[in-house]
């Protein structure tokens, strides 16, 4: 701070004749205004171009001018090239409207250096409402402006960092979703290709047993295909409705295959299981249904091949029960412990901690599978 006292010509005060008239030389208020550390000036709007008629020492210290350099001039000499036009406009408007105004404005000292001026201007009128002066005080708020700018810059930097990060995460999510769709697309196409390869191979084979074997393989692959198609058709890829699957399977193996002599009876509650159980459950259901179609009605005692096949699904307290039944020849006397289909069912049941029960339904066979299906936490399968 420059505390050097500004030299003041002896008649300086007399340059402010109008002020003199209103307040008088011995007025303690005038003395206070002269001595305060707050920069203050008074202008006379009744003179041409509203010149400064009084400036205190603090104003001279702040701006670096001598008193005789400022008295008689309009305040605009404090403005410079970087002064905000809008702030100047605000001042002009207030003066025109004879109103108070408070504005932060960039001002220039005599030496060309700048400071932020928290400028307050207010009109002073006499009892008769005649405008006499404008009173203006200046406060150097450069420090405050600097920290404001720093805070704004920090805030902008922070917001930009958050925006950048958000964009990164969105891009990553988008890439992941695209990848998931790509992989899903490829899995489905590959499953279709596997079925196609088996079908092509089967066309070249004349041996009935070998053909039958490829058909069984095709059915198993197609069960997996149906699981996959259903899983990714649904809104939630982590849940799987076994009943919907069973409906597709039956329509595929009974209705669409032209087995018009076999009637299907479906009693299906919606049974929702987590996606990771979908494949083993679907394979078991496929084995049981294809077994009934293949074996039950072939050598019916009365020679007919007609019959009924039933699928029931229910979900009583924490369990999923699947029942596949037929009214065919029954399994009595069958030694099937080591056949592949049976082993497949038993292994899958073990994987699911399920219980499997073959009953002689007289006539026919009833297989009941009971799978524990505790409520799972969502997102487990992701």
């Amino acid at each position, binding site marked *: 701070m420059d505390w050097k006292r500004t030299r003041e010509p002896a008649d300086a005060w007399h340059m402010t004749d109008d002020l003199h008239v209103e307040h008088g030389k011995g007025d303690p208020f005038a003395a206070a205004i002269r001595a305060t550390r707050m920069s203050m000036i008074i202008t006379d709007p009744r003179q041409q171009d509203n010149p400064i008629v009084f400036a205190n020492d603090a104003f001279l210290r702040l701006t670096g001018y001598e008193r005789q350099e400022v008295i008689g001039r309009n305040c605009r000499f404090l403005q410079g090239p970087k002064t905000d036009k809008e702030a100047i406009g605000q001042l002009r408007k207030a003066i025109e409207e004879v109103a108070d105004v408070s504005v932060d404005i960039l001002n220039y000292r005599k030496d060309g250096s700048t400071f932020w001026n928290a400028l307050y201007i207010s009109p002073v009128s006499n009892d008769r409402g005649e405008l006499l002066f404008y009173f203006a005080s200046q406060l150097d708020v450069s420090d405050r402006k600097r920290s404001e700018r720093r805070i704004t810059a920090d805030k902008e930097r922070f917001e930009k960092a958050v925006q950048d990060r958000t964009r990164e995460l969105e891009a990553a999510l988008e890439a992941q979703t695209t990848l998931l*769709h790509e992989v899903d697309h490829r899995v489905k196409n590959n499953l279709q290709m596997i079925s196609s390869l088996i079908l092509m191979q089967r066309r070249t084979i004349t041996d009935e047993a070998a053909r039958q074997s490829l058909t069984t393989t095709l059915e198993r692959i197609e069960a997996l295909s149906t699981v996959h198609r259903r899983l990714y058709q649904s809104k939630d890829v982590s849940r799987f409705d076994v009943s919907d699957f069973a409906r*597709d399977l039956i329509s595929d193996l009974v209705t669409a295959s032209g087995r018009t002599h076999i009637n299907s009876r479906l009693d299906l509650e919606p049974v929702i299981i987590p996606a990771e159980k979908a494949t083993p459950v679907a394979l078991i259901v496929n084995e049981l249904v294809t077994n009934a179609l293949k074996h039950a009605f072939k050598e019916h005692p009365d020679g007919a091949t007609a019959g009924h096949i039933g699928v029931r699904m229910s979900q009583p307290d924490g369990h999923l029960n699947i029942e596949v039944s037929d009214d065919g020849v029954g399994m009595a006397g069958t030694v099937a412990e080591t056949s592949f289909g049976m082993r497949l069912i038993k292994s899958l049941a073990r994987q699911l901690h399920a219980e499997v029960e073959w009953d002689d339904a007289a006539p026919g066979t009833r297989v009941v599978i009971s799978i524990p299906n505790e409520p799972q936490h969502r997102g487990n399968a992701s």
Partner: protein
Amino acid sequence: MIEPLKVLIVEDEALLAMELESLVEEAGHSVVGWATSSDEARRAVDTTEADIAFVDIHLTDGPTGVDVARYIGEKKKSMVVFMTANPKRIPDHFAGAIGVIAKPYTMNGLLSSLRYLQEGVRRPPPKSALPAGFTLSPAFQIVWAPTA
């Protein structure tokens, strides 16, 4: 006997196209052409007469199957059924197509779709039930399966 269908296959995967052709012919229909890109498909549309075009969404020149369907619709030459592993890519209006057979389809699913389409094209609306894996477009839902 209903008259069999003439089928155009638009599919970039040779293996799938080959097997589809066999199944279509085994079912008593005929395949009049096979295209792997949208250009080939447009040429095939201009030079052949087909009742039904099975159109994959993703072809050798990108996801251009919907454009192919639109072209076929403008020419009014045949009806379109999308056949794709990516049914979610089909626009809501289905570009005028009958519907979509979602991949992976099963052999029996495809055969019943062929039967359903044969009825739908020759003697609409089809009498048999909508096959599993076959989804009708909203427009065809109204005329072919109004109760569903």
